């Protein structure tokens, strides 16, 4: 489990500890859903920060 409070402190984010505690379950749930997907990623795949029409159109 990620220690979100320690992470916020280390990065000197001005997020009150109680606020970090309140959002920790949501972040933990997201971690559990997202982390396993990384196994799908070959090195050759680049980010799609702006949408590529060729990818969307399957070209």
């Amino acid at each position: 489990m990620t220690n979100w409070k320690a992470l916020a402190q280390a990065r000197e984010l001005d997020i009150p500890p109680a606020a970090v505690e309140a959002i920790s379950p949501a972040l933990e749930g997201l971690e559990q859903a997202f982390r396993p997907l990384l196994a799908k990623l070959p090195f050759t795949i680049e980010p799609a920060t702006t949408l590529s029409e060729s990818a969307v159109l399957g070209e």
Partner: protein
Amino acid sequence: MNIAEAAAELRSREVSSVELTQDSLRRIHAEQPRLNAFITITEELALAQAHRADEELARGIDRGPLHGIPYALKDVFATKGIRTTVGSKIFTDHIPDHDSAVYEKLTEAGAVLMGKAGLQEFAYGITCNNPHFGAIRNPHNSACIPGGSSGGSGVAVAADMVFFAMGSDTGGSIRIPATFCGCVGLKPTSGRVSRYGVMPLDFSLDHMGPLTRTAHDAGLVLNAIAGFDPRDDTSSRHPVDSNPNKGLRIGVPQNFYNERVAPEVAAAYVRALGEAESAGATLIPIHVPDPAEINAISRVILLCEASALLEPYLHRRADFGADVLALLDQGRLLPATDYINAQRLRRVYQREWARVWDHVDFVLTPTSPITAPKIGQTTVEIEGVPEDVRLASTRFVRAINVIGLPALSVPLATDSPLPIGLQIIGKPFAEASILALATVLAK
């Protein structure tokens, strides 16, 4: 009355744009205290634009089907000289010095701006329980949310205040108010409608589109606002085509979209599939790329981009609503590597979705697994499982923004006291085909 009918009456001189605008103003003033659909009502401007529309028609100048038609803009679209709040305290007094591309195009088309519609703060969420401008209420039951973030736009159309309203959709923000309020909502293909001059929530997930009474009307608005714009780096040069394809192969997902659906929604969806088959469609069972996985990617991208965008204001914690602040805090805690990998995964799933179209022309799903929750409700229980209202409401729509596909929500016939929507997902740039199918199903 819908846009097409009003346009016909304007041209036969049965009604004037000024009369339509005065009717619209009467409806807005009558319903605003109950529903709170608007942040700013542009009465003076509307009457001036309506007079101009009538004068032009009298002189034989016809700007097309939106000429003289009253509408609303979600308060994220910049309007020169008219405050654009983004539903926030931080931008409460913000008056842009330029117009958004969509407002430019609608003005060029002769449409009449009635005002700036309310929304979730910074368009970040789906309840429209706005801490700065008050809760927006569902016209079918004012104790319920309208959906969001384009909630004011959905209410303004569903309560007959305007003929159409513009919304923005980052993870369902056009389609959710469309399904909860009982109107049509179109999220076009990425790049189809310029984002220039719209306050962004997420650079790579935002889409602009109309909410209307009919699918045909949505097509009329789309034709006016679509097209390449060099001021938007993601704007597409793909031609705007209003001719639908003939294909009627409908994909019916056997995964995800049939899980944890409210009984009244499931029943209306099954009926709609039957009607589609009766209308000549071929129903094809399919498995779509896992929307749960794409939803996780969407959340990572949105949390990171929204927090990056609003970083300059995050020291003003007291000026944000609690729900939006909680999301912005989450985004600040995610590592950059997650954001980059989410965008890489996005490309993987775009390729997987592209293969879906080898087998079908459309994919039909419920727009949301639930009907409109109550204002202040934080969880819903479906099949005995409690779920966060925001995550439940967006469960069936969010993934489509990641892929960039066009999708429409159209109201379904139902005995439920609250509206239920059908989501029609189509091939890239196949908006005309989606709208044609929706029109067939509406008959």
